[in-house]
């Protein structure tokens, strides 16, 4: 069976190669080919999953080694894969949600003349993401990591004719470079410490390394995770990334790629377990981001940006859980999967709404859409209930566990983290209810588009609604399924698991969670359900205005890094021009001047030449005698 692992990656990779190199003759059939190959990968994943379930819990990991990728003496990396329960979970999520989004894109991108290329990029992304989660060593993981970064860049900027999209792509790429630098440094430290970067040996030998080194590796891995998963302080690119086509936002910037940071931390569990300081920083980053994203989500009027804030916030939950150690790893992944379902569903729903509303994204110009788009309304609504943690739906199970684990961290930290997660749950309920009410309820606030065309909202085609329905099923049922089918036991052999000792009972936490959710929903209802929503956004409080500007993240980056960087480069350029060039040009001028002078010695007269030779001989003789004398 393990020989099938390479095929998982191979199928979408083949699709990418064919679609990107195949040329125009594939324009009419390319999307089918891309979808088919993504689906093929999903089928293989299912087969491997079934095989894995048939084995005993400790014997489920599979390995496949293709060839030695980098054969430099001592510095060796294999093109080799590792498929264990953690990877399997990701593979199913990536190929499953990926296939659904391929299907959705057939309808969504129908009128785009570069659809073939779009599917090529999507396949490339799936292949790279699978490589990321299947790699058996950090260097190969890094390859996949960069691969998804590339795919993300290409897809965010897919509508490159829009300057905003091109800029957003560049921004995402640049911010991610910072994180990627962290990953490469982590791998370098790993190599110098352990002499290898294969997961097995590295993670088995963490006991051999000093805690300082492990903390360094952990912090660098965290930096990488922050870049890829849009965590504070590298979060600024995610909002702009919504410039990409909506299926891209659903697949890459909600369900899969942005969760790669969580994968990285959970995969490196042994390193973090041995580096408590790094773990603490991880939880802090998670906690800050979950509030940051939630607050931003409250203020955005652009439906996709509101959802992007929400994504950031939910990944904050996962990172926080991953920072809790063995009591949190399983729940981080569980929330990751349920989030994959409901957030992808929400994005597809948002795409469906935009599709029916002339690509309008401002929620203040929506309203009352539930009658016009019933399927979208219902699926979106189920996703909404899932994310706010409505009892029984998937978000309820996964988020509740994280909140419980946060309290179980113990001590003051536990109380702080637990309170933050509860607060986050309240805000989540608030902003999601806001989105729901502004979009589907209330009076119509539709505005004609720039061509003066009033919108004619309509339900989307089957190719779009079917994936939404399937994802809605996942949003509803995944949590309960995991809870009762034993997700903890499934992942435990890989990530380890420990029961925390919460100061609050499980029932108390659940009650509190539901209570804050109700408060959040109620507040939003008071503000957006009872009162009409103005089409033009009111000025708002200072916090609202700041949140609309993403809590001034770009202003901060601009002031500190852009301006600072500009000054730095200017001064370096100045030094280069005056000092370095001065020395270089000065030397050149000096040599040139010397050349011009020496040239005059060559005057063409034999007598001068003879004198020179005579003098030279005299010096030669004198020097020889002098050498003997000293």
């Amino acid at each position: 069976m393990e020989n099938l692992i390479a095929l998982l990656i191979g199928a979408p990779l083949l699709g990418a190669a064919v679609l990107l190199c195949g040329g125009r003759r594939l324009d009419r059939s390319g999307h089918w080919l891309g979808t088919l190959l993504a689906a093929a990968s999903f089928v293989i994943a299912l087969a491997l999953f079934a095989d894995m379930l048939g084995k005993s819990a400790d014997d489920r990991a599979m390995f496949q080694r293709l060839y030695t990728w980098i054969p430099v003496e001592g510095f060796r990396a294999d093109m080799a894969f590792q498929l264990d329960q953690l990877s399997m979970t990701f593979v199913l999520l990536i190929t499953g949600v990926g296939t659904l989004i391929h299907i959705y894109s057939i309808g969504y991108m129908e009128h785009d003349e570069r659809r073939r290329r779009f599917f090529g990029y999507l396949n490339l992304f799936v292949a790279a993401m699978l490589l990321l989660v299947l790699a058996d060593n950090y260097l190969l993981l890094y390859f996949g990591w960069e691969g998804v970064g590339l795919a993300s860049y290409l897809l965010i900027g897919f509508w490159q004719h829009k300057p905003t999209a091109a800029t957003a792509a560049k921004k995402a790429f640049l911010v991610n470079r910072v994180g990627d630098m962290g990953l490469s440094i982590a791998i370098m430290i790993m190599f110098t410490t352990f002499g290898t970067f294969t997961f097995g040996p590295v993670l088995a030998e963490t006991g051999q390394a000093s805690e300082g080194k492990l903390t360094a590796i952990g912090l660098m891995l965290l930096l990488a995770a922050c870049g890829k998963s849009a965590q504070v302080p590298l979060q600024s690119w995610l909002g702009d990334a919504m410039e990409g086509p909506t299926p891209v936002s659903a697949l890459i910037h909600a369900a899969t790629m942005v969760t790669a940071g969580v994968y990285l931390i959970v995969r490196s569990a042994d390193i973090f377990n041995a580096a408590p300081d790094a773990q603490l920083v991880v939880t802090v980053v998670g906690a800050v981001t979950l509030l940051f994203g939630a607050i931003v989500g409250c203020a955005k009027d652009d439906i996709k940006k509101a959802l992007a804030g929400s994504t950031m916030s939910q990944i904050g939950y996962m990172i926080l859980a991953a920072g809790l150690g063995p009591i949190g790893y399983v729940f981080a992944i569980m929330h990751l999967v349920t989030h994959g379902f409901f957030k992808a569903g929400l994005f597809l729903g948002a795409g469906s709404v935009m599709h029916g509303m002339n690509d309008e994204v401002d929620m203040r110009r929506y309203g009352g859409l539930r009658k016009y788009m019933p399927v979208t309304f219902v699926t979106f609504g189920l996703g909404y209930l899932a994310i706010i943690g409505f009892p029984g739906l998937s978000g309820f199970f996964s988020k509740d566990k994280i909140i419980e684990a946060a309290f179980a961290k113990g001590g003051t930290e536990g109380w702080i983290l637990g309170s933050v997660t509860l607060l986050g749950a309240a805000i989540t309920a608030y902003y999601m209810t806001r989105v729901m009410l502004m979009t589907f309820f209330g009076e119509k606030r539709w505005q004609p588009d720039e061509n003066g065309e009033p919108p004619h909202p309509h339900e989307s085609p089957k190719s779009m609604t079917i994936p939404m329905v399937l994802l809605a099923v996942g949003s509803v049922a995944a949590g309960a399924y995991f809870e009762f089918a034993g997700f903890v036991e499934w992942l435990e052999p890989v990530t380890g698991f420990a029961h925390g000792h919460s100061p609050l009972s499980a029932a108390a936490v659940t009650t509190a969670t539901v209570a804050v959710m109700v408060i959040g929903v109620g507040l939003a209802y008071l503000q957006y359900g009872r009162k009409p929503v103005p089409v033009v956004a009111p000025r708002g409080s200072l916090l609202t205005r700041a949140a609309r500007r993403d809590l001034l993240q770009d202003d901060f980056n601009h002031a500190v890094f852009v301006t600072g960087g500009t000054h730095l480069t200017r001064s370096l350029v100045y030094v280069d021009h005056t000092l370095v060039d001065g020395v270089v040009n000065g030397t050149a001028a000096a040599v040139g001047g010397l050349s011009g002078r020496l040239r005059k010695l060559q005057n063409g007269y034999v007598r001068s030449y003879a004198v020179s030779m005579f003098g030279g001989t005299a010096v030669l003789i004198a020097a020889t005698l002098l050498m003997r004398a000293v």
Partner: protein
Amino acid sequence: MSTSAVAPSVHSLWTTAAGPLEKIPAPHIEYTQLSPVLIVIGAAIVSVLVEAFVPRKGRYHSQVFLSVLALAAAFAAVVGLAAGGYGSTKAHIAAMGAIAVDGPALFLQGTILLASIVAIFTFAERRLDPADHGHKVDSFAAEAAAVPGSEQERAAVKAGFTTTEVFPLALFAIAGMLVFPAANDLLTLFVALEVFSLPLYLLCAVARRKRLMSQEAAVKYFLLGAFSSAFLLFGIALLYGYAGSVSYATIARVVDGSIGSVDPALADTMGNDALLLIGFAMVLMGLLFKVGAVPFHMWTPDVYQGAPTPVTGFMAAATKVAAFGALLRLLYVVLPGLTWDWRPVMWGVAVVTMLGGAIVAITQTDIKRLLAYSSIAHAGFLLAGVIAATPSGISSVLFYLGAYSFVTIGAFAVVTLVRDAGGEATHLSKWAGLGRRSPLVAAVFAVFLLAFAGIPLTSGFSGKFAVFKAAADGGAGALVVVGVIASAIAAFFYIRVIVLMFFSEPKADGPTVAVPSALTSITITAGVVVTLVLGVAPQYFLDLANQASVFVR
């Protein structure tokens, strides 16, 4: 009284002479081992006879045929000797101690012969200029003895005279060059020097275009050459005074003190270190003049510029090989006991040669003068290898000489192609935009320039790397630093020519590129092939040079 006192002694002289003569032993000559030299000298003599007796019409073809045949046969003889082990196990000193047959000698003779063959091709090129009065013309004057611009010259041109004497002259010069690095006593060294120098002086004088410049160059070369020969000869006399012998082996043994006084007549001078040091410095000066080291280089630019370009290429390549060979043998065989005396002096010479050549080249505006200064700088790089005073120093210099000679002949062959109404267009400004007009020729020249600059994948890099490595290993690290700086300076003017050729607008009245016959094409192709092969896969040739790096003593 006085007459009566003298008379008997005169008489006794007479009677001694009139008595029965002692039998003079016939010198023992190893004809086989000396065959490369003998073949070339024999061919040179036949070549003179050809000039004398073959009708004018047939001379060109006979001479070209004879020269190439002789050089090829001599090269075959060198290969045969090397294969027969004369370069290693059977190395010995032939001709009564006059000529060494050993690895370095055979390697250098082989290099000289190969370089000479391709150089002779450029001598024989007759397609570059249009026919004059219906006669094909080469690079040489119709009648060298005719005063430039005179009626006699015009008549000679009209009659279709050609200076086919260049072939016997070249053959004599080559014969001298073959002996020069193999000479194992100071007198043979001197004779070989004169044998190859005198024909070169003449060859410099016979350019067909710019004849006055050519003659001026020849006179300068001759005067300065004679001047340096005088120093050399005086140095030889002093060394004889010191050691009582001109044989390398004997001098070496006197230097390291293993034999004391030999000749009672020289008891006063023998072992006098002042004689040794002064004599050594003067002999050294004579050799440094030939390799073109600063401050004995002044002739180089003027002569390189004035001489007919095929002669320049030949001279720049073959003379340098021969002279460095002689220099190596002198320093490694005669004066190993004096290493601590000559190394500091040679350090100084190498430094000023590398820097001087590279720096003055920057402001040159004539391509031939540029290449002349470039050759000075390269002499400096070679001296760095010589100074290593290790076997790898010898082999690296041997390799460098082989690589350098082909690049040089190739580069000067390209210079012969770029022409305007006045003959070769050697002013750099005329080369602007050559890459647009004749991409192939410009690209080939660029390859040669990159090799001169020592850019990787060319023979220049392999060679320079070898000599610098040898120098560094031999404890001359500082010299290598100077060498690298000089290389950087030199790279400037090489690359500048490339930029000029490819990135400047061609001039409206720019030169044309002549389409050569197969002869020059072979020369240039050989240059490019050797340059790239020695740059990409130098190991075989480095090994060859390594095996050939032991001097017989």
